[in-house]
């Protein structure tokens, strides 16, 4: 994944990308609600998986990494480690928003 995602884009494409990033950020609160209120393992995994698969495409690499870390913790079944990973994810969402 390129460091500067929009390097080399035209000014109008860069502006469009910035607008998409704002839309993505605006949706993060509901993404977090899905994660925080997931009633079962499968729902939680799906919500984390979705975030992990999209965040870096919008330039939010750290957010994507946090979601991947939490996804891995769910798979490991370690509740304490999962809680810590979800805390980190929430902190990153708050930082971005």
């Amino acid at each position, binding site marked *: 994944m390129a460091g500067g995602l929009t390097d080399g884009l035209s000014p109008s494409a860069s502006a469009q*990308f910035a607008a998409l990033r704002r839309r993505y950020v605006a949706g993060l609160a509901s993404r977090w609600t899905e994660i925080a209120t997931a009633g079962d393992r499968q729902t939680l995994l799906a919500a984390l998986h979705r975030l992990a698969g999209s965040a870096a495409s919008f330039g939010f690499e750290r957010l994507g990494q946090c979601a991947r870390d939490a996804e891995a913790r769910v798979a490991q079944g370690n509740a304490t480690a999962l809680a810590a990973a979800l805390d980190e994810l929430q902190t990153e969402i708050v930082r971005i928003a």
Partner: protein
Amino acid sequence: MRSLQRVMCVEDDPDIRMILEFSLATVGGYDVCMCAGGQLAIDQATAFKPDLVLLDVMMPGLTGPQTLAALRSQPGMTGVPVVFLTAKAMPDEVEELLQYGATGVIVKPFDPVTLPVDIRIYWEHGGGRRID
């Protein structure tokens, strides 16, 4: 050989559809047909006549592999290259996806600036190379 111009995308996640549209239409300059699910893609494939299909693997309803199998039976779709889009990236999983008859596998998250070139490489060379 036709040039790569018409790209059909099949993806259930609205965030990914949004960035795919930007990547392929705005950055890549392709004509894009965006489908939110496999059945929509099957319904629209013959009319849109895609040069390449970018197909999500895990979707509610028809999965990517099921959609690929159904697309192949549509008129004019037999030889159209299909590239899977997946967040799963283990080598054995990639091999399994290629065995469904896909030309390649692109791993999410993808770089929206380089994706137009990545799919062109699959279009030009085919053969199941993996790009990530």
